[in-house]
């Protein structure tokens, strides 16, 4: 076993899918999008992530198909490199080191050996478009320093640069002007719109640009929702434009269809508009896309469009404006009110998603499972509207019940409050609304919790509110003659000296309920709803409240606004210990006694993990994040880890996830989840790369039959061949693309060799202790072989004039050496 790495804070999933325009592969089968430091390859048909291309060491800012080989992909990044990938196999072919921070990447079929990138000059906010000559070299890493300047003072966003008419010109927009550079004439024309501050022109700013694929026509989007179609722009005086105006707000992106017959535009209205024939009256709409359209891209084959949305989603749209697939990441563009929760059934992370929705997000697969529409109202996307907000949500122990609270407050005295209870329907595999309670309290609901007992016969819910009451809600028969319908009603209303109820919490076995009223904690018997005792520390309002678990269930923990963490003993009804700590998050681990607390300071956030029974923390991690940590949650692990180090034992059974103010989801792990996620789909690839033609079906079947026969044969012969996957050489051979492999004549021997060795491993199996070592050696051998073959290649290159005779003798020699080696290994095994 390898030495365990110590866990560190890693960014986990939820990465942005909408940072840049997505790019389609030439056959529209795959779609590529940049996502943090990676490039993700999705299948357009199945929405599955096929590959994650990792290799960049900073944010990836652009991705483009190689115009000369549509099976390859260029990507650029802030780390100053352009990388060339084989996306089918997901491997890095080449790295070009440019040295500058690269903001955007453009490729052009015409410029064969160069690409265009946006770099920044020394001054901030000044960007240049330059062309980079990619040197032809066989080595993996190449310096590409031959930059030639194209356009200055452009916008960093790739939406603001477009190449037109097969690379005759490039158009760039920024602020109030459009610059066009003509490659043939090597001249730049600049067209400026009025920027005066009157009502009509104040929002003339350019926001995006697109070029017609065949005609001299540039489309530009503007802040006021106008689209201008520029023509005749090679004449500085006679240029002209047409205005198309439908959007009422900023035009976020524009794209021409492949033939240029229609123009696509999108914006905050969440509507994809198709302008046919570039005329104002002839337009088609695809409405209700859910969130602001950030980017639009068109597949080179012309059959698909892709829109990226501000809610971290990509939609694959058919040419006839029908949505065919949705790739949804973690929705991040909104405030999280509900906090992080774990759905007990799916183990998915649950939090606010789209407006009015709860999203269920699978941490394992970095994918949104589904959205649950809570508010069930059409969302009107307009600035300044006061929306209904989903503020609280809670699951019961088994995941059968979900309680949600939504509110809308336009004026001080006009609070609209609604509590909904949802039951899990096994048939439909989803939550359905059971009870809707209007105005469950007079004022804001501050806390919501289910009684987490395993006896599920009478689920109980407690809500605490600023109106000074806490209410107990129980499930009862609804007035139905069949006694089948159930509903929730209020069972008990408690209060304490008209103080605002701020928190509530059930103990592990459900026998006690703790409710905090500002500075006072009250303990109630959940059978009789009697007030048992009160704790008061006079140390500010209670911010969090939780009971200890398992061996520590006699403790109650509370944090206060003034920065004191208190632990009370419920048996002695006395303060066990207290500590001065400004806790912003306190989360108990459901699998153990551990409690995680995050404290906030001016420089960053610190994490403390402790057991209630002992005031000394188990683990302290300073500076888990520079920003404020807003929410945290423990997620039970499917397979327990085995950290031997005492400090990390708290991570063995569950994992701690937390969400910062900028909405990045972080966790403690030894490696980043993207690396862990290295898809299981690699096996699928061999199949996927075969086109599904009728021939494929015939041949595929044919091959299967052959395989079966082969199996039969092998059984007959009783030759136990090891699985090819276990042999590194074979593995290597199969997983390297054919065009980067050395010639077959060299491989052949290698292949044979590996098979020879494999026969020998069969005998090695008898001695299981040595297997590891053996394998290691094997791989070593194969490495040697590689080196050797390279050498041979070199000699071959130099001695081209030599006759075959010498060659033969060389191969004989090689054969001999192999035999020797085989012999040697034979000896080694015994």
């Amino acid at each position, binding site marked *: 076993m390898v030495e365990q790495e110590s866990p560190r804070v890693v960014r986990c999933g939820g990465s942005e899918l909408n940072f840049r325009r997505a790019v389609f592969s030439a056959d529209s089968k795959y779609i590529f999008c940049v996502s943090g430091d990676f490039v993700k390859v999705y299948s357009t048909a199945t929405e599955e992530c096929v590959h994650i291309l990792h290799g960049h060491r900073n944010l990836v800012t652009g991705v483009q198909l190689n115009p000369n080989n549509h099976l390859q992909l260029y990507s650029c990044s802030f780390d100053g490199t352009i990388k060339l990938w084989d996306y089918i196999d997901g491997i890095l072919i080449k790295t070009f080191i440019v040295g500058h921070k690269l903001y955007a990447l453009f490729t052009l079929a015409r410029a064969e050996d160069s690409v265009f990138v946006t770099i920044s000059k020394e001054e901030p906010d000044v960007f240049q478009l330059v062309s980079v000559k990619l040197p032809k070299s066989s080595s993996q890493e190449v310096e590409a320093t031959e930059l030639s300047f194209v356009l200055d003072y452009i916008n960093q966003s790739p939406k603001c640069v477009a190449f037109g008419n097969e690379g005759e010109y490039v158009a760039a927009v920024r602020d109030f002007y459009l610059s066009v550079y003509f490659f043939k004439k090597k001249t730049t024309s600049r067209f400026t719109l009025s920027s005066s501050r009157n009502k009509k022109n104040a929002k003339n700013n350019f926001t995006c640009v697109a070029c017609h694929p065949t005609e*001299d026509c540039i489309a530009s989007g503007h802040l006021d929702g106008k689209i201008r179609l520029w023509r005749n722009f*090679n004449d500085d005086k006679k240029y*002209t434009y*047409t205005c198309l105006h439908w959007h009422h707000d900023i035009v976020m992106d524009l794209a021409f269809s492949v033939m240029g017959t229609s123009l696509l535009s999108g914006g905050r209205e969440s509507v994809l508009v198709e302008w046919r024939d570039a005329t104002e009256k002839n337009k088609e709409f695809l409405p209700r896309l859910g969130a602001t359209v950030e980017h639009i891209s068109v597949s080179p084959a012309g059959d698909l469009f892709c829109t990226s949305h501000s809610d971290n989603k990509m939609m694959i749209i058919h040419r006839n404006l029908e949505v065919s697939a949705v790739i949804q990441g973690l929705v991040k563009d909104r405030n999280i009110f509900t906090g992080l929760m774990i759905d007990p059934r799916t183990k998915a992370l649950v939090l606010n998603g789209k407006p009015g929705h709860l999203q269920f997000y699978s941490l394992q697969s970095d994918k949104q499972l589904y959205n649950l529409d809570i508010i069930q109202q059409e969302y009107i996307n307009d600035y300044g509207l006061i929306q209904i907000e989903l503020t609280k949500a809670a699951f019961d122990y088994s995941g059968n019940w979900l309680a949600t609270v939504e509110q809308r407050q336009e004026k001080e005295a006009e609070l609209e409050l609604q509590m909904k209870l949802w039951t899990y329907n096994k048939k439909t595999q989803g939550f359905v609304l059971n009870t809707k309670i209007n105005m469950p309290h007079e004022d804001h609901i501050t806390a919501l919790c289910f009684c987490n007992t395993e006896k599920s016969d009478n689920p109980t819910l407690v809500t605490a509110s600023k109106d000074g009451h806490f209410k107990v809600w129980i499930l009862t028969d609804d007035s139905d003659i069949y006694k089948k319908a159930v509903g929730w009603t209020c069972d008990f209303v408690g209060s304490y000296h008209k103080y605002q109820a701020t928190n509530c919490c059930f103990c592990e076995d459900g026998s006690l309920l703790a409710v905090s009223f500002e500075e006072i904690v009250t303990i109630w018997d959940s059978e009789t709803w009697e007030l048992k005792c009160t704790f008061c520390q006079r140390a500010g309002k209670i911010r969090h409240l939780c009971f200890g678990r398992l061996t520590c269930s006699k403790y109650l923990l509370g944090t206060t606004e003034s920065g004191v963490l208190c632990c009370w003993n419920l048996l002695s009804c006395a303060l066990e210990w207290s500590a001065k700590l400004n806790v912003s998050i306190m989360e108990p681990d459901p699998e153990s006694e551990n409690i995680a607390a995050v404290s906030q300071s001016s420089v960053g956030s610190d994490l403390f993990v402790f057991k209630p029974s002992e005031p000394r923390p188990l683990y302290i991690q300073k500076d888990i994040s520079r920003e404020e940590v807003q929410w945290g949650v423990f997620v039970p692990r499917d397979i327990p880890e085995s950290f031997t180090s005492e400090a990390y034992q708290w991570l063995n059974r569950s994992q701690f996830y937390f969400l910062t103010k900028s909405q990045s989801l972080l966790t403690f792990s030894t490696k980043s989840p993207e690396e862990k996620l290295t898809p299981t789909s690699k096996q699928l690839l061999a199949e996927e790369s075969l086109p599904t033609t009728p021939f494929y079906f015939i041949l595929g079947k044919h091959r299967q039959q052959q395989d079966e026969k082969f199996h039969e044969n092998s059984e007959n012969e009783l030759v136990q061949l090891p699985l090819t996957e276990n042999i590194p050489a074979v593995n290597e051979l199969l997983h390297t693309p054919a065009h980067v492999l050395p010639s077959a004549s060299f491989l052949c021997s290698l292949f044979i060799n590996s098979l020879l060795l494999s026969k020998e491993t069969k005998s090695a199996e008898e001695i299981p202790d040595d297997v590891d070592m053996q394998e290691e050696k094997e791989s070593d051998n194969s490495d040697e072989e590689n080196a050797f073959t390279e050498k041979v290649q070199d000699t071959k290159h130099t001695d081209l004039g030599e006759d075959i005779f010498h060659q033969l003798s060389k191969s004989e020699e090689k054969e001999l050496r192999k035999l020797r080696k085989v012999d040697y290994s034979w000896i080694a095994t015994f």
Partner: protein
Amino acid sequence: MGEFKVHRVRFFNYIPSGIRCVAYNNQSNRLAVSRTDGTVEIYNLSANYFQEKFFPGHESRSTEALCWAEGQRLFSAGLNGEIIEYDLQALNIKYAVDAFGGPIWSMTASPSGSQLLVGCEDGSVKLFQITPEKIEFERNFDRQKSRILSLSWHPSGTHIAAGSIDYISVFDVKSGSAIHKMMVDRQYMGVSKRKCIVWGVAFLSDGTVISVDSAGKVQFWDSATGTLAKSHLIANADVQSIAVAEQEDSFVVGTAEGTVFHFQLVPVASSSTEKQWVRTKPFQHHTHDVRTVAHSPTALISGGTDTHLVIRPLMEKVEVKNYDAALRKITFPHRRLISCSKKRQLLLFQFAHHLELWRLGSTVATGKNGDTLPLSKNAEHLLHLKTKGPENIICSCISPCGSWIACSTASRFFLYRLTYQHDNLSLKRVSKMPAFLRSAVQILFSEDSAKLFVASNQGSLHVGQLLEGRFRHLHTFQPQSGTVEAMCLLAVSPDGDWLAASGTSAGVHVYSVKHLKVFEYSIPGKQYTEWSRTVQKQGFHHLWLQRDTPITHISFHPKRPMHILLHDAYMFCIIDKSLPLPNDKTLLYNPLPPKSESDVVRRRTAHAFKISKIYKPLLFMDLLDEGTLVAVERPLDDIIAQLPPPIKKKKFGT
């Protein structure tokens, strides 16, 4: 500079009539505009868009078509079925010819200018030959089923396109037969099932016919095959007019929604020679239907029901930023509609068919500069004088003493005597008028109200004496050797000895009334005064030269000879000749020198031009006495409010 008490008059309830046709003449750079009441106006686009000629309207003559032919000859045709030629020298109608085809809807001159084509209600297209004196009917083309609403010649003159209801016909001029009939789609995107009226056609030299119709479409047809090539839906209402540039690289259409769209022929790609028509810019300068458009080499001209004539220069065609680069909106006539009696503080308003006499209100209150004073006595409507007959009033005048009113239509001249007895007013028409005094272009009273000067349309000037309610003819100044140019402007010196008259060809004649002699000063030979020499030398302020409206009235201060008062529609200005002229560095518009500044500073910053922009649009301004001004305004909103409602358009966010 002097402070004035200003009568701010807003009760002149004048409504210009809507524009029906415009015709641009490239040779003389003039624009003919016809209005719905039959008035035809000629604007000189070279002379700061001044309305230099004007033919009064007539109730039965509503023009539907207007065109220039044979260079400078102007023809109109209308629903009374007549073709009219105008005499541009004498400012009257030369002759009217009945086309015998019912109401005429369209008319166009051939590219050579020697033939005239009219489209009639009965579906006939008639060809007229233009002779030097008259027009002669030549022949009919194949008769169509319904009225011909639009006509266009092919630039070679061999074919014509005629727009009718639901179809467009292409005729061969030689044979007179229809060679193609192109049906226009009635329904577009399911808008309506009504008939589709082809409001306008344009025949291009490559054989393309462009049509605009009532379904809101602009369509391109191939006349060789009779097929539709391309269709642009541009409006939800009718597209009513089209005009093509002479180079055929752009055209303009006007819609009933008040929008004017510009179409341009642009190359598809810089490398290819293929070109396509692209709708480029929309212009929304009108609130109502754009009934007519014209395309001059440098500007788009449009006019419609909302009575504005809009001239929108094409920026890419304008070389330097000067007068021509400004957007112009001409609403009011450049001639005088208002005259005032200084002595009795009366205003005479001229309408198309009646005159109104008002007495100005008065006040006893005094106030600071800029205060609005309360009226102690409201303005009073004294008289409503209606003319008989269908003809519009050409001109009118009230004498300075307030006891005489003169007005004229195209065929009759009226002179009235007013007598005031306390608050009662009695009116008596002066009966015995000389027979030659039938129609006047301009009427003026002398300062002492003893003489009447009448400029007739024959080029002669009549002088009459007014005595005890009677008119006595004194003299007639005959026009200079053989010219029949009408005098449009008259001015008389305060002592009544000198009379100046100006015709349309920029000559100024000065007549000595006492000695009955004629002095003529043509502009080049005129003796300029010392001041105007300085102005000529130094030049005007650049902002002054950038003004784009012609000055419509000039008067002098009776007590301060150094002051000149002048105004146009947007500002009024007093020029003090004693002060230095402004140069380009000084501020031209200095509204009020701050009181706090010392006299030295004020004197230093003061210059000859004092400009006020408080009153607009300003129709008339004059001095009543030394300290009182009268300003007549006509707010545009009041005019719009009295027009029929425009087509309702959905406005976003309402």
